[in-house]
């Protein structure tokens, strides 16, 4: 309730500045706010210098347990386009959008369309229930997302359409390269299973390249794993003489380390990619780079059953 009232105040202040900007004829840049880092990178890749793209999720935060603070709502109140992931990844989002009450702000739900995309690829459709929200970890779907961002951006700023199209095509080519690189590297891999001491973020990625993800947590890292599950995974690791247990960036490596110690394995990181650390932000590590690092680590730890 408090957040709502506060956001009204901020919104009105924002409006005042906005109208001032119009009066003085400042050419406002396209302002795009995204909830998570991959969407920020996609949007930035499309708009280039003609837009300001920022991500709500601060460096180092874990998206499933993060909630926006008042300053984030201020930022959102000035956006022309808000790109969010959807599929329940941002449970706070609906309330905040309603309280912002800006019907003219464009929004994009990234996960909307995943079900159709998935079904269209001959996978068993998840006909009911929640869908896996980690849609950015399907690199073909990411190309569709870039197209959808492009459409919206062109609609908002038709003058820049040519540039947007060129840049979008270039980035999509990089995504296609990444997809191809994964496919090639993993085709020859002898093992197909990996043990992930994080949450089940890599479902789409695993399905796409014929891998099996064995994760400790479910679709969100907030529900604690059960002892039996730990025991089961430990047994599996022991039986298959596993050498690498993966842990998740932004989730404590403790449990991965416990299993690794139990079976004499090493631990390596996997990046779900929804966010970066402050250091990675400083070093301008890109989403594509994170995914390439994932591939390299994965290749060290695939298990042949």
């Amino acid at each position, binding site marked *: 309730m408090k957040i709502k009232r506060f956001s009204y105040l901020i919104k009105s202040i924002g409006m005042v500045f906005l109208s001032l900007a119009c009066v003085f004829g400042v050419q406002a840049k396209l302002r795009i706010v995204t909830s998570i880092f991959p969407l920020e990178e996609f949007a930035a890749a499309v708009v280039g210098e003609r837009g300001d793209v920022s991500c709500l*999720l601060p460096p180092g935060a*874990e998206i499933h347990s993060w909630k926006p603070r008042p300053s984030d709502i201020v930022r959102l109140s000035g956006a022309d386009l808000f790109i969010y992931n959807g599929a329940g990844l941002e449970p706070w989002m609906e309330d905040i959008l309603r309280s912002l009450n800006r019907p003219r702000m464009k929004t994009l739900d990234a996960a909307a369309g995943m079900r159709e995309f998935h079904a269209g690829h001959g996978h068993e459709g998840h006909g009911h229930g929640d869908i896996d929200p980690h849609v950015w970890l399907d690199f073909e779907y990411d190309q569709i997302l870039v197209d959808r961002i492009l459409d919206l951006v062109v609609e908002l700023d038709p003058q820049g359409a040519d540039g947007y199209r060129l840049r979008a095509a270039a980035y999509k080519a990089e995504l296609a390269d990444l997809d191809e690189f994964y496919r090639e590297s993993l085709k020859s891999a002898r093992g197909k299973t990996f043990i992930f001491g994080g949450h089940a973020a890599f479902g789409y990625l695993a399905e796409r390249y014929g891998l099996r993800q064995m994760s400790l947590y479910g679709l969100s890292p907030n529900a*604690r794993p059960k002892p*039996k599950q*730990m*025991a089961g995974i430990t047994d599996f690791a022991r039986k298959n003489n596993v050498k690498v247990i993966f842990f998740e960036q932004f989730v*404590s490596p403790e449990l991965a380390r416990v299993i690794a110690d139990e079976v004499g394995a090493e631990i390596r990181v996997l990046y779900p990619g929804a966010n970066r650390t402050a250091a990675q932000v400083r070093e301008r590590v890109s989403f594509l780079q994170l995914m390439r690092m994932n591939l390299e680590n994965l290749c060290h730890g695939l298990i042949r059953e």
Partner: protein
Amino acid sequence: MGNMSFLTLIDPFIRYGFLQRALLAGLFIAVACAVLGVFLVLRGESMIGHGLAHTAFAGVALGLLLDMFPLGIALAVAIMAALLISRIKEGSGLSGDTGIAIFSSVGFALGIVIASLARGFNVDLFAYLFGEILAISPLEVWLSVSLALVVLMTIFLFYSRLVYMTFDRESARASGIRVDRLDALLTVLTAVTVVLGMKVVGIILVSALVVLPAAAGLQVASNFKKALMFAVLNATMSVGLGLLLSYHLDIPASGAVVLLSFLFFGILFVLRKARIFRSF
């Protein structure tokens, strides 16, 4: 269920190091909690464990923020809070648990603010709020066991002075016992124990591990040693069986431990009320 022998029940505790560590640390912490609990409950300070655990939460958050050993920082913060609480009790005229209530809420608030500084309510924090017996590292086991031993040895060393002070504070003072120092000592020991217990049952439930076994012991014991014995028995059985149940029924260990402890308490309470045995 017919062929589920005792061996299959305890088998996982033989096979998995993480369960062994949970059991070992849990049992030692349970003994320390139970012994301290008897003194605290009789002193009318049942809530101090709760208060110190919440204060320790600030330490955990700080540890996670600085990326340093959170348990160690929580320990330091809780001990400082313990000393402050006993100081406040002396001088402020605040009655009973008012000081504790203030500390616990301020500590928790501080924890929340620090956690948000750490950019986002970190998932790891939940492990401390609700306990994470699966992730007790060998270092933490070593720390828990040795600190629990230190707590127990200190109590053993000061045993009769602590009992005297708890039973009859004025006479204890009149026989030259420095009760103010012992107050502080007891509070510090509680802080240490509660921080250790956090990892097993979590911040929210750790005070139950201090209070319930002690309350159970007080139901039936005819003397102090027996009260301690019953409390220790209740606590160790709750932790042992609780971990077992947690594994086989796939329920959270912290909840299982506390509910079992309550069950044992309830049984003794009913037995006492029914005067099945007057006192042991």
